[in-house]
């Protein structure tokens, strides 16, 4: 457990500048939207949040799918996996790091939206939905991306994970086995006031399955290879 936290911390530390930029982004968007003269348009806010949520999940996809490749190419992976760290812990560290990255970003979205709309109890609830669903969705995307990156080139892994995660969102309707279709709708719709517990649960179970499948695959792979 401690190794996972250390690895997640190290992952976040490496991406701290990118994270800072991402945290600033929703506030910048809200600042553009805010006006002292009239109340903000809810539809506009909704559109902005929708966009911001998409960026958050996309960055989780890219960070997670590139991580192993980057660590191999920089040879830093040898310094980690030669220690008392299992391959599964390593993957969990990456996924946890990507999830926390996403989580921090979703908190920033939530706070920036509260700032626009003004804090009220119903808004607080909405914000909680945004953060919890955002965390779960980031973890799901990151685990999926890591799964593909264990066996594929990172660009291919990011693309496939991205298609699986985002293509269903373009269609109408939801699927219980594609939890993102429910979670993202809940996060981006102002009328959603409730946690979609079944979808959250399914997302968590699927995340665990992704980890369980990728660990033995990663276990079997050589990590000290010449990528050039």
């Amino acid at each position, binding site marked *: 457990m*401690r190794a996972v936290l250390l690895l997640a911390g190290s992952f976040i530390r490496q991406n701290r500048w990118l994270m800072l930029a991402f945290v600033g982004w929703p506030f910048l968007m809200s600042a553009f939207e805010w006006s002292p003269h009239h109340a903000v348009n809810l539809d506009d806010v909704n559109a902005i949040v929708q966009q911001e949520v998409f960026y958050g999940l996309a960055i989780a996809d890219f960070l997670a799918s590139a991580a192993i490749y980057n660590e191999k190419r*920089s040879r830093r992976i040898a310094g980690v*996996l030669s220690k008392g760290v299992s391959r599964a812990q390593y993957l969990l560290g990456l996924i946890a790091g990507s999830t926390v990255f996403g989580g921090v970003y979703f908190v920033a979205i939530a706070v920036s939206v509260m700032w626009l709309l003004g804090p009220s109890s119903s808004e607080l609830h909405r914000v909680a939905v945004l953060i919890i669903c955002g965390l779960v969705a980031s973890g799901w995307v990151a685990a999926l991306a890591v799964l593909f990156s264990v066996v594929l080139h990172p660009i291919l892994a990011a693309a496939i994970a991205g298609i699986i995660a985002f293509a269903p969102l373009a269609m109408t309707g939801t699927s219980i086995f594609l939890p993102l279709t429910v979670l993202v709708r809940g996060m981006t719709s102002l009328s959603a006031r409730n946690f979609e517990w079944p979808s959250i649960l399914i997302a968590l179970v699927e995340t665990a399955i992704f980890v369980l499948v990728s660990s033995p695959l990663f276990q079997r792979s050589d990590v000290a290879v010449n990528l050039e």
Partner: protein
Amino acid sequence: MPVLEFEHISKRYRSLFREERWALRDFSLLLEAGEIVGFLGPNGAGKTTAINIAVGLVHATSGSGTLLGKEFGEVSARRRVGFLPESPAYYHRNARATLKMCGALNGLREPELSRRASQLLAAVGLDDEAERNVGKFSRGMLQRVGVAQAFINDPDLLILDEPTSALDPISRLHIRRLLLDARNRGKSVFLSSHQLSEIELLCDRIFFVQAGRVVAAGSTGELLRSSEACEITVSNTNGLPASAVDIQRQADQTTFTIPVSEQRAAIEQIWAAGGTLIRVARKTKSLEEVFIDVMNGNSGERTP
């Protein structure tokens, strides 16, 4: 119990567009506790591959092995091992934090972690650079960070892939001290190198690898003595044995080399001719000569 054992390990590297390549072929080696063992071989012999298999970074194609009594790849064994990769690379943070991260990954906790980090930074001569970002370090400095982090958990077995390849003489001395001290405390050290002088100074035993196999092994002393020739210096004589080679004359002294088996006959012949014996010595080889002999396949001591 051996601290490290390779049993008939073979490793094939495959890649999509290149032909496959056997880095190790039926590679066997056994390392007992409490010695410094050198792993010597030309570039591409398979040293790094063998080491990476031992620490679980790479998997053998066939064969098996144990690290501190556990199958290769087991996490609990690695926690008691100190490992220096061939070209160490670390996250961009200061040297002290790097060491502490490495120790923490092996389960070390404060205040032990800070204490050992400071101690080791001093031991490798980096105490003045401890707060500098390792991303700005030279290759030699990185290698010293690498050696220090290998020692952070006070490991029972050190596996070092070319620990002194980028180092200046002073740093080499630092590291030699660390290694000898570890050995004196009962730890085992396994180091690869192609720097013969370093191996000769440090190692109790040497394994020669070539093309993925151990081609010769022996204690350093034995290997260096393994010459079958002796050198004789005489004066006041003209009659040298017929098998004398390498004859050098200096003033009235003559020095020549003959096979050990003919040493006695040669001495008697010189005395009979009224000569004076000045010096007889078994010729020692330099490790370089041993290395070249072994690589050319002229070694007496082969392991199967």
